[in-house]
C-alpha cells in the first residue's frame, strides 16, 4: 500500500472519522477531531506502524498528511 494511503487510513482510524474525510492534502486545521491530544495519539500510532521516534519539535510539525509523508520519507521509512 502506498505510504500516503497508509497514513490516511491511520489518521482516519486514530481520529475515528470516516476515511473519506481524509485526503492526501488534509491538514489538522481542516478536521475538528484532530486536536492536540489526537495529535499525540496519532504520533503513537505512527511510531508503532513505522518504527519512528520524532522529537517533540518534530511532533508539533506533523500536522498534515503531506508533512507526515515528508517526515517518514526523510526518516527512511517504507
Amino acid at each position, binding site marked *: 500500500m502506498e505510504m500516503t494511503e497508509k497514513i490516511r487510513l491511520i489518521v482516519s482510524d486514530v481520529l475515528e472519522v470516516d476515511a473519506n474525510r481524509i485526503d492526501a492534502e488534509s491538514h489538522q486545521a481542516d478536521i475538528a477531531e484532530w486536536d492536540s*491530544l489526537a495529535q*499525540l*495519539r496519532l504520533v*503513537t500510532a505512527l511510531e508503532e506502524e513505522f518504527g519512528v*521516534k520524532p*522529537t*517533540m519539535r518534530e511532533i508539533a510539525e506533523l500536522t498534515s498528511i503531506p508533512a507526515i509523508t515528508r517526515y517518514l520519507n526523510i526518516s527512511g521509512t517504507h
Partner: protein
Amino acid sequence: MKISTGIRRFFVPHSLITLYYLLGCRAFISPRAEVEISPLLRIGSKSTVSSFAKIKASEGPVSIGARTDIGVGCFIGGHRPGIEIGDDCLISPNVSIIGVNYRYERLDMTFREQGTESKGPIRIGNNVWIGVGSVILDNAEIGDGVIVTPNSVVSGCIPANAIVQGNPAKTVFIRR
C-alpha cells in the same frame, strides 16, 4: 468534629489564616479559600491557594511543596495515609484530590453507616499539571512531569512524564 477543629474552622478569620501562611511559609492563601491552621498541613514556599479552594487536613496529613499553585474551587481532602503534592505543580480549577471512599458491601446499611476506607496515600510528584475538573482518587501515584488532561480520573500509578486522559486515566503519550 473535635472542639479545637471547630474553633479553628469557625472562629479564626480567613484574613488571619492568609497572614499566618504568608509570614510562616511565604505561601499565599486567598482569604476566600478554606484552609485551616493545622499541624497536619504543610505548604511550601511561594505556593498559592486560590479563591474557593478547600484544603481539609483534619483527618490526615496534607503536604504541598514549593511553588505549587492550587486553582480556584479545588478540593483536597486529607485522610489518614496522607496526601503529598510536590514542587512546581499546577493544579487547575475544580480539581478534586480525595483520599477516601465509602464502603458499599452491605445493602442493609446506608453508605454513611458503612463508613470510609483508604487504601493508601496519594502521591503527586514534582512539576505535575492536573487539568480542570480532574479527580485524583485514593492510593493514586503520579510521577514527575505528568500531565493529566481535563476531566480525567486517576486511580492508579502514572509513570513519569506521561500524558494521561480519560476515566480511568490511561497514558496517551510519554513526553520526551
